[in-house]
């Protein structure tokens, strides 16, 4: 059956789509920055030998890594408000879910990165008379962070895909806009094709960058 491709309705609504794209990027950027930041502390807690730090952080990470993201977002939107002292709108719920998810995954990246540093580096720093904090700050983390960059970029790519799930709770990112518009304009084919292409244009360059950094890291050793 022939279909007449007609993208006019897509272009007519481009302002709405661009707003959706903007919201996608905003949500992604916020959750990435917060997630990478908190992930550092959770990662260090997971590396600690002190049970007070190790067990709660491990429980947190396992819960958020072993449940679907959509369930996390939906939980924060439908379940959490019941016991939450403050208001939860779609943006807050999505941010909470995605940030905590990113925190959990990036904490593993930190932990693995720290663990990959030769034990001798710890010893040399310790033998000079550095305390744990100084060892971390001056010697271990600077070396570890370089190795973690490809994995962090991978997280960023994943996160950009995950922001589309916020459409389920009616946050006005790109997917949600597409849904809304296609219902009004009756052009699901063009709309969903256009949106898929937009996402691709947004995400693929980042994926390429990841491969590039991975190669550079492998070469440097």
């Amino acid at each position: 059956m022939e279909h007449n491709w007609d993208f006019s309705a897509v272009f007519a609504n481009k302002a709405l789509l661009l707003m959706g794209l903007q919201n996608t990027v905003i949500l992604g950027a916020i959750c990435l920055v917060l997630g990478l930041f908190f992930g550092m502390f959770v990662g260090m807690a997971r590396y600690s030998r002190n049970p007070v730090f190790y067990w709660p952080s491990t429980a947190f990470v396992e819960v958020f890594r072993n449940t679907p993201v959509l369930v996390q977002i939906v939980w924060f939107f439908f379940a959490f408000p019941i016991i939450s002292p403050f208001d939860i709108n779609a943006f807050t719920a999505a941010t909470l879910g995605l940030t905590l998810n990113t925190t959990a995954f990036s904490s593993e990246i930190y932990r693995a990165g720290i663990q990959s540093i030769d034990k001798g580096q710890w010893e040399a720093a310790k033998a000079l008379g550095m305390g744990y904090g100084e060892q971390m700050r001056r010697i271990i983390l600077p070396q570890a962070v370089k190795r973690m960059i490809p994995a962090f970029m991978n997280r960023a790519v994943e996160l950009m895909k995950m922001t589309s799930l916020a459409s389920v709770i009616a946050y006005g990112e790109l997917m949600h806009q597409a849904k809304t518009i296609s219902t009004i304009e009756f052009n699901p084919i063009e709309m969903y094709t256009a949106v898929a292409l937009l996402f691709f244009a947004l995400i693929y360059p980042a994926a390429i960058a990841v491969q590039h950094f991975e190669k550079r890291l492998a070469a440097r050793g």
Partner: protein
Amino acid sequence: MGYEWDFGIVFRDFDLLMLGLINTLKVTGLALLFGVPLGLILALLRLYGSWPIRIPVGVVIEFLRSTPPIAQLFWFFFALPILIGVEMDPFRASVLTFSLQSSAFFAEVFRGGIVSIDRGQWEAAKAIGMDRNRTLRRVILPQAVKRMIPAFLERAIELMKTTTLVSTISYADLLYQANSIAQSTYRSLEVFSIAAAIYFVVIFACSIGVRRIERYMARTGETTAH
């Protein structure tokens, strides 16, 4: 002000939740069943196809990996039926979407595994007169597959998490059931928490299993290729 937790209502509908879980596993299982072989085909095409095949396949794989699964799902459920005039119920759309989506990731796992096999293996096979296909079948793939098992299993677990999207097109998986129960009982907190807990138990158990397997394989000298 305390909230009065009431899990009783949820347990009355527990069988609905279990039905949802079964549906989740059904979609995941079928997607794996189709996705893995398809991934192998894509990987081989990308590695050994002539360039008119290799390039489009590469584009398709990258496209499937760099677009959100929900966008793919919606396209297959809302757009495709109109385009080719085929009836698409939520179940079919889900299996189709996730078979393709997972095949793109499996293609990368296969490619990584095959490429990681020492060049010497190819040379040895060539030296006794094997052609490329036979070498692949008898020498390369058997070794590659063993290395890739942990990566496969991890991807499979990822897939289990990703298929929760099917609830958005009204396929009755666990999340969908939880949602409808919550809407009729107004016990969102309890229902969604229990659904999350069920997901956690199933996925965490699989995850631990995979870690055991990884440890076992590391001990017996097989390393993973990612």
